[in-house]
């Protein structure tokens, strides 16, 4: 891939540039020369990002290549959202963006400027579990628990979207969330119960 090294060239260019040298001198917190170059070059490669996660506003600086999933897990340390495939093929990374369920592994973090993200950590109301969380426990809608946050986030939207009218429809509209332990029938039961309960989600 001939283009792959371009970024490194740009970094080298940045390191050598006088603008960078000036910045280095101007910054009192940066002391070691080599390290300074690295940190400042990194700054050039990042861009500002404002978003809200579980009701908390964040003003961040991120590389454009960082996915929403990796931002949540590795930078905000919200490990509830899971990485199962990293390619939009399993649903473990499902979160809500402005109320819609999406695969956070295929969304660049910078594409979520100004958006409201809800993860599994933001679903419960304090210690009071969300009805879907309650239903997953009651119907044992999981075993190992790894796909569970994605299943629950997806399930909440499945009901909200109006795709939980019968078992067959739920199965189809929950097929974007793979559960290798095979808890599917229990997941369907959990969603049916929440749908029947009619609580506001």
């Amino acid at each position, binding site marked *: 891939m001939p283009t*792959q*090294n371009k970024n*490194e060239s740009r*970094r*080298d260019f940045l390191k050598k540039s006088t603008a960078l040298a000036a910045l280095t001198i101007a910054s009192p917190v940066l002391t070691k020369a080599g390290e300074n170059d*690295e940190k400042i*070059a*990194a700054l050039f490669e990042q861009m500002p990002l404002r978003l809200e996660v579980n009701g908390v506003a964040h003003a961040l600086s991120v*590389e454009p*290549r*960082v996915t929403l999933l*990796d931002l949540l*897990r*590795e930078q905000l*340390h919200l*490990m*509830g*959202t*899971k*990485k*199962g*495939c*990293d*390619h939009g*093929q*399993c649903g*473990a990374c499902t979160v809500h963006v402005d109320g819609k369920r999406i695969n956070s592994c295929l969304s660049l973090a910078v594409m979520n400027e100004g958006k409201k993200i809800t993860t*599994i*950590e933001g*679903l419960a109301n304090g210690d009071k*579990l969300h009805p879907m*969380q309650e239903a*997953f*426990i*009651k119907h*044992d809608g*999981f*075993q*190992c*628990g*790894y*796909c*569970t*946050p994605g299943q*629950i986030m997806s399930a909440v939207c499945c009901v909200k979207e109006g795709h939980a009218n019968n078992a067959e429809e*739920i*199965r189809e509209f929950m*097929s974007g*969330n*793979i*559960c*290798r*332990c*095979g*808890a*599917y*029938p*229990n*997941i*369907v039961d959990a969603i049916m119960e929440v749908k029947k309960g009619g609580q506001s989600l």
Partner: protein
Amino acid sequence: MDKELLIPTSFADDRVDGVDKVTGKATYAAEHQLANMVYAVFVCSTIAKGSIKNMILADAKRAAGVLDIIYYANCPAVPGYNPYAKDPNKKGYEWRGLKVFNDNKVYSNGQPIAMVIADTMERAVHAASLVKAEYVKEESDTDFENAKADEKKLKKPGEYKRGDTDAYKKGEVSLEEEYTIPSETHNPMELHATIAAWDGDDKLTVYDKSQGPKGTQRELAQCFGLDEKNVRVVVEYVGGAFGSGLRSWPHVPAAVIAAKKVKRPVKLIVTREQMFTTVGYRPHAWQKIGISAGKDGKLTGITHHAVSITSRYEDFGEGIVNVSQFLYDCPNVNTSYRLLPLDVNTPTWMRGPGPATGCFALESALDELSYKLNIDPIELRVINHAVLHPISKLPWSTKFLKECYVLGKEKIGWQNRPTVPGSVTEDGMLVGYGMAGGVFGAGRGQASAKGILKADGTLTLQSAVSDMGPGTSTAMVTMGAQFMELPANKISFELGDTDLPNGPTQGGSGTTSAIGTAINVVCTALKQTLKEMAIANVPAFANLKPEALKYEQGIISVTDNVSINISYTDILKAANKPEIEVVKDSGRATAEAQKYAMNSFSVHFVKLHVHPVTGVIKLKQIVSAADAGKIISENTARSQMVGGAVGGIGMALTEEVNIDNRYGRYTNANFGDYHVPVNADAPPMDVVFVNKADIIISPTGAKGIGEIALVGVAPAIANAVYNATGKRIRNLPITPDKLI
């Protein structure tokens, strides 16, 4: 035994770790936060066989944030890679399996050949993409179909015979057919991952996705020449494994090597694609069955041959043909099993290892025979029911297989099964019913546990096992409650840390009976200690012998005068002790137990539809009936059975690893192209347990569920497909193209 059966099967039906799992608080291997941690990413081979001539690292080294790139030429010496050099007696200390970064040899496509360590995940991933290798390529062979035809390429691990060889050839009614399954991957949802952190040169802490913390500890201690006590392995939660976590794969030592070299904690996550080539799979297998019976249905001969693949650097075999030796009563049985080494990564145990593959052939063949005999397939199995184990001639500790037939048959509505294949339709779809049996060993393993009984009334139980999902903690709390006769909410179970007493590796459906036994012994010891403490510290009990006291529901009383009694919490208070603790080992199986054969049994029933034109299969219902001993937790046991059936759906209908033999490279190493079942594939399911305790195996009464949940599902589906269409599919998976 009667008393055992009177105790409710479940005290606490919800999973004890349920809230953690639904709120995202459960912490899996890659999710532990360590200060100063950096990221390692594998670079994998792009050829299947040969050696590395040169690694091109310049671009990667220049990439931002890169701390180090480790490969064979600069990998620090790993003691377990070459133990003979220092001490020829250390044979047992040699690292099992691929010695990652040990030399420049390439044994399979997708083998880790280098590892980039960088300060952020994105930088490590990018730099890894810049590492290139120049190879000296050798011709590789990954073509199972071709290679198995060459006798010289097969290794001979085992033959078995009783009675006449190939008796089926002279049988009244007989058939001979070949069956194949492709390689299937475990693909648990959690990516395999290891975090390694050194404390000085001789202390290591590892967070790993392991089914056996103690096993991982032992492997790493031996590999890196450390005292076991200086290696701590933490496995708080495991996001599924199904066998892929039964041993340490190359990424585990790799993370440890990286952490040592960069002197910082290192997190190494195996990507989904890399999991296809580094953490095992169920091996591609060919089987041939010859089977015969008299017109009365009595089996007269079974011949069962199997060949399955392994890697060039390791032999992996499993008991594929064993089921034909003992599942049914047959006087003449001969089996053979051989390995075929190819230029692939090493396979490993995957849910139901051996019987899952073997039963596909045997239970399909029995179904075929049933049509030839014109005997109902259930009846055929009942006719050949083995009362004594056909090899050892021992009775089974318990065997309620016939009960499974009765329970499942009724639930699925077996009377509606078409006797002529392809003769019945519902809503324009062909209707088929099928059934097949499953079996797995149920011998009890050894485990230790600790019990800490506190003055506040709580009991903490501990064992260094891990829970990949079946609900081990829930089962242990339930049993603790049962054995100590205390409410479940007073009891907790701690696991997943090698600092705890020796727990077994979670595998082979043996966790519940092994640790359950240890907990039983611990609880017995705690009761004894309470009696002794009452005598020593409570005046009313002074001078009495422990034998004169009894324990019931947390109360110690004098057997002859129950008005003299004291609660366990008051005993601790009287003794002025905040807590008492005991550590006990289950010991090995008793001499009495050696007089029995031990197995769990299942029978799976399937109803399905097949579209007569497009060949699309729609499962309508699955009923799984199990003789798994006493059911400790109805809720989690049922889920495990359902989950196994879903795994069986994958085996039957969707899962297959594809390889391009020209390159020896997988072409569907991802969740988009390797099809594990999705929600829409799973029909309504019912589970029926015989639920009778087997107290010969262990005082828990439990046998095991994990494997029999899957074993037999695939042939039950294949048999139902035949019943619906008249098409017998002997090579899995049964995709729509095979039915048009």
